[in-house]
């Protein structure tokens, strides 16, 4: 279906989020796709399977008998030099955890979508960020999308940075809120994608090749092991600048504008008294709410790994009232985004930073709730973690 107002939505179609991601992934041209079904990721992989069945795709679609197998299949294909894709959610991501660490340790540029969903028990199929946060230390780049269009562009960015840095990347899209909703979205065409993202470059001696036999995944003693971890950490640091550069490049080639630099995106008051920090689709709700406020700003974190500490520090500037609103919690500690933000701005003036846990298990976050948070932030805050309901 074409959008009615052609001037406003040039080249856009009204698409389900999952369909937008599947079309984009197909245009990116993976050689091997493998996945295991889990709500709310299913529509993405069903669409890809359909493209393949209809002769509209060039990849091998390998049916996996578990997420553990799916992650291992794309691992093997990537090690053999292929560009690969997978998608999962929640329990599936956790089942993959062992493989995820292995993939990053082997420096394979695998890209996967995570349709973010709560973790059992109690079982719940709706959105929050507990799944992605559980693998925050697995050595994967992590992007969070606000809407369909951002999800589309983040998949391009993810492949670009992953293949440049030999690091895997997870693109997080809020389950149902993005995967099952319809929005106007422009799908980048193949030729433009090729310009931004040419075929995966393979250096001899870095993949499984009978003409140049290599041993991958050997046994490392303590000294050598430590060196590999150090290498990954250094490359994560380097990738901060690469993400910014490639996001700029992405904007140029695909001709779009926003306040973001690929790592963070600030919007709202120029000299804010309060800054709200969040990730994912929640940014949309907050942006709507902030239209009524002249002194509140929003800092949306689009890249969670590597964590953009310097960008956050810069964006906060002299604002001393910070509310981190997030969809995950480490029991006995705090919200992961809050903890990392706090660490990033440590020593920064007399900062008042408050953690709001919201939207767990798909709990609705309304504009009213955001307004209430802003009201609270104007008074004395307790610095205790607050659950928003």
């Amino acid at each position, binding site marked *: 279906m074409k959008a009615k107002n052609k001037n406003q939505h040039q080249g856009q179609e009204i698409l389900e989020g999952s369909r937008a991601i599947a079309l984009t992934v197909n245009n990116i041209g993976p*050689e*091997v796709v*493998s996945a295991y079904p889990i709500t709310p990721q299913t529509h993405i992989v069903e669409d890809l399977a359909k493209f393949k069945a209809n002769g509209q795709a*060039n*990849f*091998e679609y*390998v*049916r*996996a*008998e*578990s997420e*553990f*197998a*799916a992650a*291992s*299949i*794309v*691992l*093997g*294909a*990537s*090690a*053999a*030099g*292929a560009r*690969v894709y997978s998608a999962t959610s929640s329990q599936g991501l956790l089942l993959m955890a*062992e*493989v995820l660490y*292995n993939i990053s340790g*082997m420096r394979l540029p695998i890209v996967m979508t995570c349709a973010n969903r709560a973790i059992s028990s109690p079982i719940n199929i709706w959105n929050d960020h507990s799944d992605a946060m559980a693998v925050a230390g697995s050595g994967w780049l992590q992007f969070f999308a606000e809407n369909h269009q951002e999800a589309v562009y983040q998949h391009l960015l993810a492949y670009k940075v992953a293949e440049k840095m030999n690091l895997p990347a997870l693109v997080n899209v809020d389950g149902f809120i993005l995967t099952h909703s319809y929005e106007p979205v422009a799908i980048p065409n193949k030729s433009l994608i090729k310009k931004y993202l040419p075929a995966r470059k393979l250096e001899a001696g870095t993949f*499984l*090749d*009978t003409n*140049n*036999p*290599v*041993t*991958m*995944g*050997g*046994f*490392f*003693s303590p000294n*050598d092991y430590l060196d590999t971890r150090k290498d990954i950490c250094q490359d994560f640091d380097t990738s901060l600048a690469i993400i910014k550069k490639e996001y700029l490049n992405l904007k140029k080639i695909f001709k779009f504008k926003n306040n973001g630099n690929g790592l963070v995106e600030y919007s709202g008051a120029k000299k804010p008294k309060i800054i709200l920090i969040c990730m994912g689709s929640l940014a949309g709700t907050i942006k709507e709410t902030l239209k009524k406020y002249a002194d509140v700003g929003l800092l949306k974190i689009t890249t969670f790994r590597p964590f953009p500490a310097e960008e956050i520090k810069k964006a906060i500037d002299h604002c001393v009232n910070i509310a981190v609103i997030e969809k995950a919690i480490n029991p006995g500690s705090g919200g992961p985004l809050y903890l990392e933000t706090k660490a990033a701005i440590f020593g920064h003036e007399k900062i008042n930073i408050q953690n709001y846990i919201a939207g767990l298990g798909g709990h609705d976050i309304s504009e009213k709730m955001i307004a209430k948070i802003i009201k609270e932030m104007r008074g004395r805050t307790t610095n205790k973690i607050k659950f928003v309901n």
Partner: protein
Amino acid sequence: MQNKKTQEYKKLAPGHNACSGCGQLSAVHAVMRGLTKDTIIANATGCLEVTTTAYPQTSWGLPWIHSLFENASSVASGIQAALKNRGDNNTKVLVQAGDGGTFDIGLGLVSGMWERGENILYICYDTESYSNTGIQASGSTPYGASTTTTPSGAQSIGSNQVKKDMLAIALAHGLKYVAQSAAGFPDDITNKVKKALATPGPSYIQILSPCVPGWGIGYDEAAMMGKLAVKTGLYPLLEYTDGKLSASSINANFKAEPVNSYLKAQSRFKHLGEAEINHIQMLAADNIKKYQI
């Protein structure tokens, strides 16, 4: 190590740090003789991976990957898919795993790979225990074997479970080539590998690989133990093509040696009394009956 004439690397170079007289490594050499240089290997975690790839060295002259304990079969599927997508029908994909990775932790993933019907040869080096972690019992551990998690004692005969029938599981997946062999029969192993690779679709070869420390045998006894396992009927050489038993070391001329000769030579069985030995003799008799062709 590269051969100056052929420019080919030796598939498995010496210098690895497996135990002297390791039954598995001798079986691996026999497997390698059945391969061409156009082979990619996916290896599970285990002795073979640990002893051949201590960074920065490697014994492998073929492209070789180790990911995790349980997923070598899925990794192989991914490699196969990548080859297929680029139109490479020539390169063979081989999985190597131990009995722990095959019978236990990796069984679901092995089943998934077989269901997909991909052209992958899976080799299980069966040491009948978790050799690499210190001889704990696996689903392959035979009745009566003392392991570190099924120790024999005043109230224990060692493992009281029966060895899982992996060959039957492979056959139930409709594999066109399923075989069993043992260290001590290198030509049999090499021939079976060649036959498996010539058969389209997935295939499975299980090779009894006597473990020097695990079985409590001498450094020069692994091949002999493989031979005795076959001669007693406890671990016959077998071959199934298209689901039918097509060759077996047990035939009309087969004269079984008593299992005692096999059991008494290994410390894992030395605690067994007459009743248990008789039971194991019965298991051998069952095999002889089952596989006679």
